[in-house]
């Protein structure tokens, strides 16, 4: 089937089998030249989150989403956020906190954290430890025990809050 999708801000046309998952189209290429290799395959049952992407701004596990579901929608992968300041600060924090070990889960984690922090920023709240863990609940990491990734996210959240507090007309808001 032909799928018209806005991929990382560009209108893109995919040719994909009707039964394909979004993951297969994004990652494996086939007739579509651009492989989005930040999108990883870890379980194909929606459990590990290595394949997390944003579909219309919401995090989804692309291995359990039909490719056809993206028709007429917007898909964002880590590649598409390479220049996004929030994503860059998250990547830096994850690295600085030694939250990257093998790094296979990192792109998926970053997408989930990016989504969380963007939502929190819009709502003017700062996510607490539990909210961060909840946001990461779909990203299995077998290396880190989550301690350092959670700390990295908390640090970025704190920095965002400081920026917001400094901005006129906005106060700090607890979670």
């Amino acid at each position, binding site marked *: 089937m032909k799928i018209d999708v806005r991929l990382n801000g560009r209108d893109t046309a995919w040719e994909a089998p009707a039964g394909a998952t979004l993951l297969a189209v994004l990652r494996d290429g086939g007739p579509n030249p651009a492989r989005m290799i930040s999108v990883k395959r870890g379980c194909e049952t929606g459990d590990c989150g290595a394949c997390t992407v944003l579909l219309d701004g919401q995090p989804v596990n692309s291995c359990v989403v039909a490719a056809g579901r993206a028709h007429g929608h917007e898909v964002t992968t880590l590649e598409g956020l390479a220049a996004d300041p929030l994503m860059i600060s998250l990547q830096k924090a994850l690295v600085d906190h030694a939250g990257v070990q093998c790094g296979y889960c*990192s792109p998926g984690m970053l997408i989930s954290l990016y989504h969380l922090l963007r939502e929190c920023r819009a709502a003017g709240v700062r996510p607490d430890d539990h909210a961060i863990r909840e946001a990461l609940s779909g990203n299995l990491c077998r290396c880190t025990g989550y301690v350092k990734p959670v700390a990295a996210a908390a640090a970025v959240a704190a920095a965002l809050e400081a920026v917001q507090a400094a901005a006129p007309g906005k106060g700090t808001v607890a979670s």
Partner: protein
Amino acid sequence: MTEVGRNVTKIDAFKLARGEPVFTDDVHPVGMLWAKVLGSPHAHARIVSVDATRALALPGVVDVAWHAQVKAIPHTRAGQSHPEPSPWDTVIMPEKARFIGDRVAVVVAEDLATAEKALGLIDVQYEVLPALTDMDEAHRRTDVLIHEVPDPRGIAEGGRSNVAARIDKQVGDVDAALKTCDHVVERTYWLPRVQASHIEPHVAISWLDEDGRLVVRTSTQVPFHLRRILARILEMKEADIRVIKPRVGGGFGDKQEMVMEDLVALMTLRTRRPVRLEFTRTEELICARVRHPQRIVMTTGVMNDGTIIANRMQVTADTGAYGSHALTVQGNTGQKVLPMYPCANIHFQVTCLYTNNPISGAFRGYGAPQGCFALECHIDEVAKVIGMDRLELRRKNHIRLGDTDPLSAKLGEGKEGLVRVIRSTGLEKAIELGCEAIGWGRKRPPSAPHLKRGLGMALAMQGSGIAGVDWGAATVKLNEDGSVNLAVGATDIGQGSDTVLAQICAQELGIRYEDVRVLSSDTDLTPFDVGAYASSTTYVSGGAVLKAARLVREQLAAMAAERWKCAVEEVRFGAGLVNAGPDRTMTVAELASHALYHVKVQPMATASHMSNESPPPFAAQFADVEVDPQTGEVFLRRFASAVDLGTPIHPDLAEGQIEGAVAQAIGYALFEEVIVDAGGRVRNPNFLDYKIASALDMPEMITILVPTQEPSGPFGAKAAGEVPIDGPAPAIVNAICDAVGVRAYRIPVTPERVWRQIKEAGE
């Protein structure tokens, strides 16, 4: 120290965080074929015939191979040093399937969907044989043999029995000693089958290079062992094989094994085309390796005052269909564990059985988590029997500085090993700090009236590489601008060894870590290393890097002394500078440039390093749990680890090793189990049902590094990768017992198991 002990930016972290194409599957060669393996539907069956006509007729299918077409050269896929201590009981394509999922045929096609479809079009006739899935039955029966042909090197008892490995070693005389003890405590413990579950599955891609040489890019922990094994079973020269290890998405022992590389290589040689094979998660949970399930009987003789007189550990283990690591994992169960409480009488026995279950193998901890669970639960049991405080009992008996470990000498890696003397230990300090962190003796009240609270602890020790066996080499090359290329055979599989090795190199050369570039694991370009296992990389490979850097430093010192007309001993290195007194200073870059353009010598050295010691890192680990006695639910509230890993070269990465190991061990204690039914079928081969810890399963974590100086290690370092995975399960189970008064002898302690035990205790 500046470079060692500093939390430098992990060398590969940014490219990983940006999702750049650095893993095996991220780059596909042109014209690549996709492979799939047809697994046996039977736990034990002779493959009578394979007919691939229909599969080959499917458009897009390029080739199908099965046993009749592939030369059968016995080997082991264990991925160990030569001579391998695992039985050579394996061939590329077996004539007989020995577990559900065993290789029957391999297909390559132009795309994945076609390869998948082709599997269903291969017609196979099986002669189904009786399946042995219970290890005791496998032990009893000699009428059904899983391996009918004796192992050519006599390790397993193929052809005679289903015993894959046996150990029986004794120090002193346990039977006699037990008669003299005030108390003899005997208990039996059961350990489950769990899977490493690295998030990147096994994946390998092979092709022929422009010279027709075989290139295998693979997610492996052991590139050099792999090349050796491939060369032997494919009857090629090692020089005609190049194994490249790119970034690896976690290994944990499971990628020590040659799980699939022989298949892609075979199909590339047959088709002359690039071939890719990646396991699905289901295949991982069925066809990769699992931690050996074991039953352990512990017998301890102890005096009223708590002196341990004798210890016996009897292990029965299930190696599954093949004997990968059968001898050595089980050997470790005793060797890495029993020395914690030295006594004059120690008896260690192993019977490791072949069954028609999934294959057991290497997994972080390598037998020690099983042994540590049994021993550390048992110590609590002994304390209870003799009415002594469990911390006191441990303090009274645990191993100390200067103690020797007689069992190591008897065991080694499957052969007589080397005597081990403890030359550094932070165990006492770790116990003290851990107790303080968890609030030992000051149990917190339960958070709700229907809950019960408990504290538990466990001590653990491991090794740093395999003494007298593990070795590695490194090449250090200094460039004219003062930067360094470091080539190591050591394999970074996510743990950060490239970073740590670069730090060691920089420290020794007195330059900045940021000026070192690491090339790791390409058998064409880097020197040999046994690979990433047995907690060896920092200690053993780090030793090689240190030596190589030292050699380069000596070359530089000689050149500087020559130029300054001073004694070599006067030349000092540090902060990027070389000097010999206040008025004789230059940068390392200036000296390097001098070397290349005046002396006309490349400052460069390759060094190899092996250690006859394997100094144990130590851990004291503590759990604070709440238990709901009516539902059996366990809520792990806090977990503290105090770990002596020698000098932490990179403290954050060291903590990360501990935190990650604890997360895996929490799963081991509470919910992970590959469940295999009586027919040998895995019942939960996916992450929907095989649960590993998510961010929401983690307790409050307290991680304490207890630095010590290990004289034999690079800058005093030991190892961190494995020891912290040993203690959590017994600590958690001991805490549950403290909370509700009943002990789980079997993990994982699912709610139902806790509930059942409480109920049975009440009856």
